[in-house]
Every structure is written in C-alpha cells, then in structure tokens.
C-alpha cells in the first residue's frame, strides 16, 4: 500500500480524514468503556474478601489511573505537535497542539478529582501537598496557562508560537510527576501517594484498568479531532475549499 502521508498535512485533507475517523473512535470508546466498566465492577469482586481485603472505593482506580495517564500522555503529544510546528512551521501541527489542550486539562482535573475522592476514604483527606498531587496540580496549571496564553494573543501565528514554547518548557513536569513516587530510593520519596508497580496488580484489576485507559485514549482522539475540525474551518474560513464545503452542505 502506497500512502502519501504528507497529503494529510494539508488542512482540507486532514479535515475529511478526521471526519471519517471520528465515528470509528466513538465506536471504540463505547465498546472499551462497556468492557472496562463491566470488568472493573463485576469481575474483580474477589478483591473485597480474603487476606488483603479492599474496600469498595478501590473501584475508583479504573478512572483515576486512566485519567492520570492520559493527562501526562496528552501533554507529551501536545508538546510533540507544538515542537513540530515550531521547527517545520506547519499550520496543522499548531492546530493539533491547540486541539489537544482542553481534553488534556479535563483529564488532569479528573485525575485530581477522582484522587481526592479516593484519598478521603483511604488516607482520611481530600488533599495533601504530597509531591505527586502537587506536581499533577502544576500540570493542570500548565494546560490552563497554555490555553490562556493562546487566547491572550490576537495574532494567531504569534499565539501559536508563544504557547508552543510555553508548552515545551512545561514538559519538565511530566518526568517530575513520574518520579515523584517512583524515585530509586523509597526513603527519598516523602510521598503519601502509593508507588506504582504494574507487576504487583491483580490480573483482573489490571485488565479493567488498561481497558479503561484505552477507552479514554480513544475518547481523546474523538474529542480532539472534533475540536480540530472546528479549528480548521475557523482558520480556513476565507479559503475556497471551505466555501465549496459550505455550498455542498447547503445543497443537501
């Protein structure tokens, strides 16, 4: 199969490609959500009894870990597109970065929110200035800062470049969040937050957790592409292909 990938770097080509992909991503999101939630709520009930009994609030793990992973992953992807935009000066890359930010901010907020609702019954507090929690909060402010800076500059090209630079600087938060609980010497981590070790997790819980993470990932594709399509139309409003698109839609 010979695909010319550069073809999709042009906004009109990507606009129609994204339009065809969005329903597929919605289908995947819903399927994975149903599987993940069913598995998480009904196939992990053996965790409630036995030698190391969990309380029911362990079920928050399926959305908490998934949204926390997405918050860091989406930031990384956003920075990659912002950097590509700065280096190659491609219009679509900047739009891609801008389209990811709000969804990333939502998942960062959800990681904090679900963490608070898990922390209260398990640690006895909704919030603590623990390194993991604090660095995740800073990541949330990075997203907000990126969105705010972009909307504060009228000239779109300057807004794209300035906020791309800010996003790249903020990338330093992602390894900080990761090592805030996974530092080599546990005595050096004054963290309340549990260390993460995927090999120690019960198989059923891990399966539900990974399925939910995939569901959130597919959701991110769908939501980001929807936002990207609106963004492309807004920025290309004067172009001939958008006018043709409007005429075609009008005739339907």
């Amino acid at each position, binding site marked *: 199969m010979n695909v010319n990938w550069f073809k999709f770097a042009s906004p009109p080509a990507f606009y129609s490609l994204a339009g065809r992909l969005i329903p597929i991503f919605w289908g995947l999101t819903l399927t994975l959500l149903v599987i993940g939630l069913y598995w998480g*709520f009904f196939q992990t009930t053996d965790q*409630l009894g036995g030698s190391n009994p969990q*309380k*029911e*609030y362990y*079920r*928050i793990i399926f*959305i*908490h870990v998934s*949204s926390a992973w997405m918050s860091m992953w989406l930031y990384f992807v956003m920075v990659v597109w912002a950097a590509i935009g700065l280096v190659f000066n491609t219009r679509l890359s900047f739009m891609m970065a801008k389209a990811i930010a*709000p*969804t990333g901010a*939502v998942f960062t*907020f*959800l990681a904090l*929110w*679900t963490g608070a*609702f*898990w922390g*209260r*019954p398990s640690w006895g507090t909704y919030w603590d200035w623990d390194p993991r929690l604090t660095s995740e909060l800073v990541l949330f402010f990075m997203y907000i800062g990126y969105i705010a800076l972009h909307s504060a500059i009228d000239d779109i090209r300057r807004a794209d470049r300035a906020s791309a630079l800010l996003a790249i600087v903020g990338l330093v938060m992602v390894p900080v969040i990761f090592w805030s609980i996974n530092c080599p010497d546990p005595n050096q981590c004054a963290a309340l937050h549990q260390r993460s070790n995927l090999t120690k997790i019960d198989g059923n819980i891990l399966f539900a957790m990974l399925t939910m993470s995939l569901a959130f990932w597919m*959701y991110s594709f769908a*939501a980001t592409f*929807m*936002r990207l*399509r*609106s963004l492309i*139309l*807004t920025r290309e*409003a004067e172009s001939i292909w*958008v*006018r043709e698109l*409007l*005429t075609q*839609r*009008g005739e339907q």
Partner: protein
Amino acid sequence: MVEFFVQGGYAFFVWGAYGVTALLLVAEVIQLRAQRRALFVRLNRLNRTRELDKNQ
C-alpha cells in the same frame, strides 16, 4: 441491586468520582457539537455576505 448502588457504604466516594468523570466527558462532547453548529451558522452568514458583495 441495592448493594451495587451502596458500594459497601462508600457510595458517595465511588459515585462522586464516576459521576463527575461522566459529567465532564459528556459536557465536553456537547460543547464540541454546539461549537460546530455555531461555527456553521457563522460561516454560512459570511458566505451569504460574500455572494451579495459579488452581485453588486
């Protein structure tokens, strides 16, 4: 069934976490759809203005 909603007495925390997650994700999609509809209204108006300019 009741057992499922009670979540062993932790209903507030479990459903508080799941509820807000569902709410925000659904709200984001509704906002995106509304944004697209509003955008087409604006673009169509822009297009009509252009056609009028051309005919004059």
